[in-house]
C-alpha cells in the first residue's frame, strides 16, 4: 500500500517545478516544497519560490529561466533539499551544477534527429533533381520531332 509519507524522507524539503499558468500557456515556478509526499499541486504547499521557468520559446527561440542562486545554495547545502530531475537539468544548464546525464542523452538524441532530418532533406533534394533530369531527358526528343 502506498504510504502518505515515507518516514525516512519525511520533512526533507524538495525543489521542483510548480505549474502555474492558464489554458495553453504553461508557466513554471521553481519552488521549494515542504515534502515530496505532500505534493506540488497546491499553492499553500509552496515554501519559497526560488525561480521561474518559461517552457514556451520566445521570438529568439529561447526558454527563459530565472534562478535565485543564493537561496538555492541555502536550500541545497544547508537544508539538504531533494531536487527534481527537471530542476537538476535546469541547474546543470545554468552552470550551478554539472550537466545532468539526461541532458547528454537528450542532446545526443537531438543530434541524431537533426542528422536524420538533414539526410532526409538531402535525399529529397537529390530525388527532385533526378526527376527533373528525367523530365528534361524525356522532354528533349519530343521537342526535336515536330508534328
Amino acid at each position, binding site marked *: 500500500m502506498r504510504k502518505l509519507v515515507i518516514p525516512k524522507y519525511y520533512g526533507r524539503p524538495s525543489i521542483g*517545478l510548480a505549474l502555474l499558468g492558464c489554458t495553453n500557456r504553461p508557466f513554471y515556478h521553481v519552488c521549494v516544497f515542504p515534502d515530496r509526499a505532500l505534493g506540488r499541486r497546491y499553492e499553500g504547499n509552496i515554501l519559497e519560490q526560488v525561480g521561474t521557468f518559461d517552457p514556451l520559446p520566445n521570438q529568439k527561440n529561447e526558454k*527563459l*529561466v530565472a*534562478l535565485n542562486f543564493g537561496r538555492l545554495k*541555502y536550500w541545497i547545502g544547508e537544508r539538504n533539499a531533494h531536487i527534481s530531475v527537471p530542476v537538476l*537539468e535546469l541547474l546543470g*544548464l545554468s552552470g550551478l551544477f554539472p550537466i545532468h*546525464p539526461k541532458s547528454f542523452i*537528450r542532446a545526443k538524441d*537531438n543530434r541524431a534527429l537533426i542528422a536524420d532530418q538533414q539526410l532526409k532533406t538531402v535525399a529529397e533534394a537529390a530525388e527532385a533533381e533526378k526527376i527533373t533530369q528525367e523530365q528534361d531527358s524525356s522532354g528533349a526528343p519530343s521537342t526535336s520531332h515536330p508534328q
Partner: protein
Amino acid sequence: MLVNCSRLSTAGGRCLLASSQMDDVIQKRHMGRRQPKQGKPPILPPAKKVLYHVVHAPWQKPEDVEELLWRRHAYNNAVISLREVFRAEIAQNASHGQGIESMKEAEALEFDELIAQNQARNDEKRAARAERESDDTKETKSVILEEIRVELEKRNAEKKRAEQEVRDVIARSAGFVNRENLETKILEALEKPTIYDFAIDRAGNKYFVPEPVKYQEGTPTRQKGRLYDQTLGTQHGTMEEAASKKQNQQSL
C-alpha cells in the same frame, strides 16, 4: 539568466510530461490551485480509465543505459560534493560577516540611512512649502481685501443712489392724497372733475356723450354706453389741423 534549451527540453523530459498528464487529469475534475476543504469535492474512487491504465514507457537504448550508469554515478557524487561546498560556503560567509545576520544588519543600517535622508528631504520640502504658503496667504489676503473694498464702494454708491431715489419719490409725493388732506382733495376733485369718457379724433377734438355736468341733477341715465357713434358723419379733424392747433397752443 538565459538558457537556450528549446530543443533539449522539447524532445524528452518524462518527468515534465508525467506531471503535465497528471495536471490534465486534475484539471478535468475542475480543481484549482488552492487546497479544497476537507471532503469537498467528495473523494471519489479513481476512474476506470485511470485505474486500469498501465503506462508503457518505451525502453531506453542499451547504450544510453550504459552511458547513464556511469554519468549518473559521477553526477551523484558531484552533487553530494556540491552540497558540502554550498554548506561550507554559507558557513564561511556567516563567519566572515557576509551571512544572513550581517546582511540583515547592513540592510537595517541602509534602511535607517534612507529614512534619515527621506526625513531631511521632507524637512526641506516642508520649509519651502511653509514659505510658499505664507506668500500665497499674503497675496490672497491682499486680493480679498481689494475685492472687499471694491464691493463696499459699490454698495455705498448703490445706497446713495437708493437714498436719492427715495428722497425724489418723497419730494414727488407732496401732492399725494393721505389721511390729512383727504377731505380737501375730495373737495378739490369735486370742484374740478376730470372725465375720461369721451371719443377723440385725430385733431384732438373730444366728444363727450353725454355732456359732462359738474353736479348731477335728476336721475342719471341707466344706459352707460353710447347709443351710436356720435362722431359718425361728422367732419373729423385732420393731421394738419391738429398740427396747427398744437402750434397755436404753443404760441399761447
